C-alpha cells in the first residue's frame, strides 16, 4: 500500500497541471481539410509582417488575410485585392493601384486604401525581420488617392511592381500596430479555435473571391518531416506539406495516397565567392561547373524528383532563359584547372549544413565528383545554428538553400553589387546597369528578354552552380484535389483545395 501511495504522489505532481485540459472538439459533418505543414509550434506567430519562421503560419496568413497580388501556377502575377497596377509616369517610379471595392474585414468594415498603405508601411518597417521585402518602395512618398485607390512611389524605376506586391502583402486594418494577437482579416477564411500547434479556420462566406471548397481548414504545425508523412499515412491529416523524397517514394501511390509535385521548389546550389582564391579565377569556376555530375546529384539527392540544372538561379521564374544543358566534362575541367595553375591538385573545404534534407548528401557527392577532376574536397557539416552565422555569406565555398525565389527579388538581394546578401561577390557594374535598365523597361516581353540575358550571364560567369532543383513534394490522400503546384508562394494559396466529393 505504501508503494502505491508513493507512486500516486509522484503521478499527482505531474498530473497537477492536467486540470486545464479542455473539452474535445465537437464532431461535425462539415468538409474539413487537415493540412500538416512545416513548422515548429513554439515559433507560431500572429504577426504576418515580421519574422515568420513557420510555413504553417504563412499558410494561415494567406487564408486569413487578403494580399494585393498572387502568382499563378506558372509564376505569372494575377490580381487579388489589387485589381490593377499601372505606371502613372513614363519612368515607372509612380504607380496607381486600384483595389477591389467589395472586400470587407470580418468585423464588417470595408478594406480601404488606407488599410493597404498602413500594412505596406508596417511591412517595410519590419524590414530587418523580413529581408527588406518592400524596400523598392518609397512609402513616405506614397499616398492614398481615394477609398480604393493609392499611388505608390518606388525608389528607382521598377517595372515589376505587380511581383513586388505578390503573395506576402497581408492587409490588416489601419492602426493594427500590435499584432501579438491576431488582427481581423478579409481573406477566404476566418480564425476559429485552435492552439499553437493547430490553427482552425472557418470559411468566410463574405469573401469576395471564389467560394472555398471546404468549410473548415485545420493547419497543423509539425517540425519533423517523417511525422508529417506518417500523419497522412495514418489518417490523422489529409495533406503533408514538404515531405522527403524517400517518404514520397514509400507512401506515394499506395494505400490511397498521392504525391503532388511542385517543380523547382528546392535548390541547393554550390556557392563560390568570386572575391576569394581560387574562385576569383573564372577558369576554376568553369572547371567546377563542368566537373559535377548533375544527373547523379539529382538522382541521389532528390531520388529523381527534380530537374537537372544549368546554373540558372531561378529556373521556375517566368523570365528564366532556355539554357543549354551543361554536360559533364572531367577532362576539360582538369585542363582548366591546369591552366589556372592547379595542375598538381587543388584542396578545398566545402561547407554544408544538415538543416535541410539532402544538403549533406549533396555535399559529400559533390566532393566525390570533384575528386575525379583532381580537386581534393573536405566536407564540413555544421548545424543550422552555426551555419547561418559562420558559413552562409562568410565561407568561400558552401552549399546554400535558395528555395524557389523569383529572379528579380533574388537579384535585388544577392546579385547587385550593393545587395545585402551578395554571397558570391558578384560585383559587375555593367550587369547592375543592365538590371536597372531591365527594371525600367515597360514592355513585358522586352523586359523578360533582358532578365533572361542577365540570368544567363550569371550562369556562365557567376559563382552559383545550380546543379539541379528538387520538386516540392506534398503527400495527400486521394480525396484531396486542387492543391497548388506553382512556383514560389503559389503554394500558400490553398483556398481552392478540396477534400472528397
Amino acid at each position, binding site marked *: 500500500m505504501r508503494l502505491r501511495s508513493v507512486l500516486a504522489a509522484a503521478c499527482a505532481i505531474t498530473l497537477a497541471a492536467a486540470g486545464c485540459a479542455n*473539452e474535445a472538439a465537437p464532431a461535425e459533418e462539415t468538409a474539413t481539410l487537415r493540412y500538416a505543414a512545416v513548422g515548429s509550434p513554439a515559433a507560431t506567430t500572429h504577426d504576418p509582417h515580421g519574422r515568420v519562421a513557420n510555413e504553417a503560419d504563412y499558410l494561415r496568413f494567406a487564408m486569413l488575410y487578403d494580399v494585393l497580388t498572387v502568382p499563378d501556377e506558372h509564376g505569372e502575377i494575377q490580381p487579388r485585392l489589387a485589381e490593377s497596377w499601372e505606371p502613372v509616369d513614363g519612368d515607372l517610379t509612380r504607380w496607381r493601384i486600384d483595389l477591389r471595392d467589395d472586400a470587407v474585414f470580418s468585423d464588417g468594415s470595408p478594406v480601404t486604401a488606407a488599410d493597404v498603405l498602413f500594412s505596406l508601411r508596417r511591412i517595410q518597417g519590419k524590414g530587418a525581420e523580413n529581408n527588406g521585402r518592400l524596400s523598392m518602395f518609397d512609402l513616405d512618398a506614397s499616398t492614398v488617392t481615394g477609398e480604393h485607390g493609392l499611388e505608390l512611389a518606388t525608389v528607382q524605376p521598377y517595372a515589376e511592381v505587380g511581383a513586388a506586391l505578390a503573395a506576402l502583402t497581408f492587409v490588416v486594418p489601419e492602426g493594427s500596430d500590435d499584432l501579438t494577437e491576431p488582427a481581423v482579416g478579409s481573406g477566404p477564411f476566418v480564425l476559429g479555435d485552435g492552439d499553437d500547434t493547430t490553427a482552425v479556420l472557418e470559411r468566410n462566406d463574405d469573401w469576395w473571391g471564389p467560394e472555398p471548397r471546404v468549410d473548415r481548414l485545420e493547419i497543423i504545425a509539425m517540425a519533423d518531416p517523417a511525422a508529417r508523412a506518417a500523419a497522412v499515412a495514418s489518417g490523422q491529416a489529409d495533406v503533408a506539406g514538404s515531405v522527403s523524397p524517400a517518404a514520397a517514394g514509400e507512401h506515394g501511390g499506395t494505400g490511397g495516397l498521392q504525391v503532388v509535385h511542385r517543380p523547382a521548389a528546392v535548390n541547393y546550389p554550390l556557392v563560390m565567392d568570386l572575391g576569394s582564391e581560387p574562385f576569383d579565377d573564372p577558369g576554376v569556376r568553369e572547371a567546377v561547373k563542368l566537373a559535377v555530375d548533375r544527373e547523379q546529384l539529382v538522382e541521389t539527392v532528390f531520388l529523381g524528383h527534380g530537374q537537372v540544372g544549368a546554373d540558372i538561379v531561378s529556373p521556375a521564374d517566368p523570365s528564366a532563359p532556355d539554357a543549354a544543358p551543361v554536360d559533364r566534362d572531367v577532362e576539360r575541367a582538369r585542363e582548366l584547372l591546369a591552366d589556372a595553375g592547379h595542375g598538381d591538385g587543388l584542396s578545398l573545404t566545402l561547407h554544408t549544413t544538415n538543416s535541410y534534407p539532402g544538403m549533406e548528401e549533396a555535399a559529400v557527392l559533390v566532393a566525390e565528383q570533384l575528386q575525379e577532376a583532381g580537386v581534393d574536397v573536405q566536407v564540413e557539416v555544421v548545424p543550422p545554428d552555426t551555419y547561418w552565422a559562420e558559413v552562409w555569406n562568410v565561407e568561400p565555398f558552401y552549399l546554400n538553400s535558395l528555395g524557389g525565389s523569383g529572379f528579380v527579388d533574388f537579384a535585388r538581394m544577392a546579385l547587385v553589387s550593393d545587395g545585402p546578401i551578395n554571397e558570391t561577390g558578384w560585383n559587375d557594374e555593367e550587369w547592375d546597369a543592365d538590371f536597372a535598365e531591365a527594371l525600367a523597361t515597360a514592355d513585358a516581353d522586352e523586359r523578360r528578354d533582358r532578365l533572361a540575358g542577365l540570368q544567363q550571364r550569371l550562369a556562365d560567369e557567376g559563382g552559383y552552380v545550380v546543379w539541379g532543383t528538387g520538386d516540392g513534394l506534398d503527400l495527400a490522400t486521394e480525396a484531396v484535389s486542387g492543391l497548388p503546384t506553382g512556383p514560389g508562394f503559389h503554394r500558400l494559396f490553398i483556398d481552392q483545395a478540396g477534400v472528397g466529393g
Partner: protein
Amino acid sequence: MPDTVKAAAPSPSSGGGAARAAALAAARTGLLLAAASIAVFAATDVLPGDAAWTRAAPGATEEQVAELRAQLGLDRPAWRRYADWVGGLLTGDAGTSLVNGRPVADAVAQRAAATAALVAGALAVAAPLMLALGWWAGAARRVRAAATAVLTGAAAVPTAVAASGLAALLSGTLGLLPAVSLLAPGASPLDSPELLVLPVLSVALPTALFGAGLLSGAVADALRRPHVADARRRGRPAWAVACVDVLPFVLAPFVRVVAVSAGGLVAATTVVETLFGYPGLGSLLVSAVATRDVPVVQAVAMLAALVVLAGLLAADLVAAAVDPRRGGAPREAR
C-alpha cells in the same frame, strides 16, 4: 546513484526531529531550485546568438539587429535580465516570448497537460516494470552480473531508436497503433488514449531498464541479509519472504530511483514528442532553444526542475517514513 541510495534518510528519533528533517529537506529543495534557476539562465545566456539574431532575416545589417535587440530588451546586462526574470517569476509572471510577443505562461499551459499525461503514463508503466526487472536481476544468483549488464546495455539504447523501433513494430508491421500522435486542438490526450501508447512505451521502456539496473543491487543486498536466510530456513513461503522480509528494504531505493527516473523521463519526452508530433512541453523546449526564445526555455526548464526536485523531496519524505531501519534499529552497513 548508489550514493543516493546509501545515504539513507535521517533516522529521526522523535516527532520534532521528523518535522525538522522535513523543513531541512524543503529548504534544500528551495536552494536547489534557486541554483537551478541560475544554471538555466546561465545556460541560455551562453548559447551562441540571441533572439534578435534569429529574428533578423539573413542579410539584416548590424544596426538593424542592434535595434531589434534593444526592442526585445536584450541589450541589458545579464544580471539585470536575470533579476527581472526571477522577479517576474516570483510575482507569477513568466514573461513574454521573444519570438511572438505572447505570454510564456499561455504557451506552457497549452502543452503542460499533454506532457503531464505522457510522463504520468510512462511512470505508471515504468515503475512496476522497473521493480519486476530489478528484482529478477537482483535475485538471479549465478548470472546476476550478466543480467545487470543486459539491463544496462538495453537501457543505453537511445530513446529515438527505441521510439522508431516501437513505431515500426506496433504501427508499421502490426498496424495496431497510429504512427503519430496528433491531438485535436483543445482536446485532452486522455480522450484518445491510443495516441498515448507509443509515446508512453517509448519513454517508459528505456527508463524501466535503466531503473532496474540500479535497483538490482539493492535487491541483491536485501536478499543477502541474515534474516532473509533465516526466514527461508524457518520454511516461510517465498512470496511471504519477498513481501515481508525483502520488500521493506527495497522500497526506499525504489522510490528514489523512480523520482530520479522522472527527471530522465522529462528529458526523453523532448525526443518522443518531436518524433510522434505530440504537442507537449518537450517539443516546445526544443524549438524555443533553436529560436533562442529565452523566456520560454527558462519557463520549461524551471518547470522540469521543479518536478524533479519535488519528486526527490517527496521520495525523501516517503523513504524516511517507510525505512525499516528507523526507530532505534541498528543501522547495518551495506
